[in-house]
């Protein structure tokens, strides 16, 4: 009971802070719009994949990108907590470290999912006005996509928390963008189909858990085109989901451990 209340307290704090920091909310809307309109529009005048226009093609990727950036940064944000000492207040409370970890994951996932919901609204509008034809936004397709995004987000928040718990100051932020967030995004098939990849690139993409999230969501929202094929096996969304789930479970495991060992 007490652990649940503590988890709720952490979730409450994260959600309140997110909603009050308008700059975070606004940038979470503007950034994907830039991708869809400028990259999507610009490149889309020259290329198209999988029988749909380029904007439609990258829409699942943009969803994932939002989840990726917001959840990893959410996790790393605890470095800041440690600096202004709110972390001390939480760490000294009679709560298990595991519960603190869970509270943080729930808070981060909520932030991310709120942003994703806004993106779905944008998706509806763009489909309606004809910018993104071929996007199947239905109640069930959105629900399944949300399940994918939630599972991915949990794993990614965990990565952020693992890094944040080990970092001593926010100076390492830039490194995390360069060496983790961008590679995970670019190597996920968000922006291009991953059939017929050059041999040196393929292993990186297949090792990236985000790839399977993109693949799953794209299959659901667009269709079977340009799917991930490993050997001769085409991955079903079910299999994609299992891979993403496995990734998240592993990250939660490592994260719980990292939190227990966290130094102030």
């Amino acid at each position, binding site marked *: *009971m007490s652990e649940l*209340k503590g988890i709720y307290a952490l979730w*409450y704090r994260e959600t309140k802070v997110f909603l*009050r920091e308008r700059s975070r909310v606004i940038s979470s809307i503007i950034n994907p719009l830039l991708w869809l309109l400028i990259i999507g529009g610009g490149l889309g005048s020259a290329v198209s994949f999988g029988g749909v226009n380029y904007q439609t093609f990258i829409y699942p990727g943009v969803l994932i990108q939002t989840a990726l950036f917001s959840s990893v940064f959410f996790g790393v944000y605890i470095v800041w907590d440690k600096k*202004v000492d*709110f972390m001390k*207040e939480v760490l000294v409370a009679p709560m298990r470290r595991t519960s603190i970890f869970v509270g943080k994951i729930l808070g981060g996932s909520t932030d991310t999912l709120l942003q994703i919901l806004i993106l779905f609204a944008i998706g509806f509008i763009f489909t309606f006005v004809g910018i993104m034809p071929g996007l199947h936004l239905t109640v069930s397709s959105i629900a399944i996509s949300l399940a994918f995004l939630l599972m991915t987000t949990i794993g990614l928040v965990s990565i952020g928390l693992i890094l944040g718990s080990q970092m001593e100051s926010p100076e390492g932020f830039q490194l995390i963008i360069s060496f983790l967030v961008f590679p995970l995004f670019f190597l996920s098939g968000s922006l291009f189909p991953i059939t017929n990849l050059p041999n040196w690139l393929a292993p990186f993409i297949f090792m990236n858990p985000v790839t399977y999230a993109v693949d799953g969501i794209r299959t659901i929202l667009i269709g079977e085109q340009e799917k991930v094929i490993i050997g001769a096996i085409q991955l079903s969304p079910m299999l994609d989901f299992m891979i993403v789930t496995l990734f998240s479970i592993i990250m939660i495991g490592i994260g719980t451990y990292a939190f227990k060992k966290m130094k*102030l």
Partner: protein
Amino acid sequence: MPIIETKKLTKKFEKMIAVDTLNLQINEGEIFGLLGPNGAGKTTTLLMLVTLKPPTSGTAIINGFDIIKQPDKVRKSIGIVFQDPSSDEILTGYENLKLHGWLYDMPSDLREERIKEVLDLVELTDRKDDRVKKYSGGMRRRLELARGLMHHPKILFLDEPTLGLDPQSREHIWKYIERLAKEKNMTIIITTHYMEEADKLCDRLAIIDKGRIVVLGAPKQLKKDLGGDIIRLKAIALDVDALKKLSYIKDISSCEGEVCLTLEDASSHLQEILNVVGKIESVEIRSPTLDDVFLHYTGRAMREGTPEGSWAEKMMHASEKT
């Protein structure tokens, strides 16, 4: 059986020993002070006791639980007010207190009652719905205090509780702390470099310097042990040897260009002393303070550096330590 017992508690940093084989016993229901200059190791000791910093060696038993082996159980028995602000700036004062109530699993009616009580105490009731970002330094400090006092733990740690507060709010806080100790039989450990605070509040205190206990005892006893009153005088031409012949003078020392004499019942001996000293520029009789105790045992004045350190200095100090 003491409620807190440290056993050779030690914390080493790369170049220095912050806390050096500390052996302390603190009894239930007492207000115990750790008094010392900045950097003496008070805060580090506290952070180890509340399980936020692992000791390099040694350990402590708090409420029957080992801080290294049973940190979860230790945390259930304690509360702490940190020296540095640890409230969330984006939340309001009230929300910060509510979060605290949740984190400490307080029933909701008790929580609301206590929130009201502590907000009144620190005079923040009319600002409770403002974001902490808009609070002044002193207001933040008071909010921290309110939060730490809210859940009435068995053992309460206060790290420089009244730092940067005006005298009036300081009085209020002291009274509340005394009441908590008395009515709830709460054990309170307080670090401070305010002599007055230590003197007024603490049942017993340990003077700490360079990570070690210099002396430990009740403030009254410590002052009494110095041996009576202090006469401080400035003479035109002082004959120390003549003074030394007066057997009732226990100690003669120079303090900042003047002479300090320690003796009992100073006022009745004053005339005789003045006769020996001859012409004087100034003379002062006073009872010893904890300052004198510190000076006596360490050979240094306590108020070196920045006793009344500003917020900025405090923050820098704290971030250096962590």
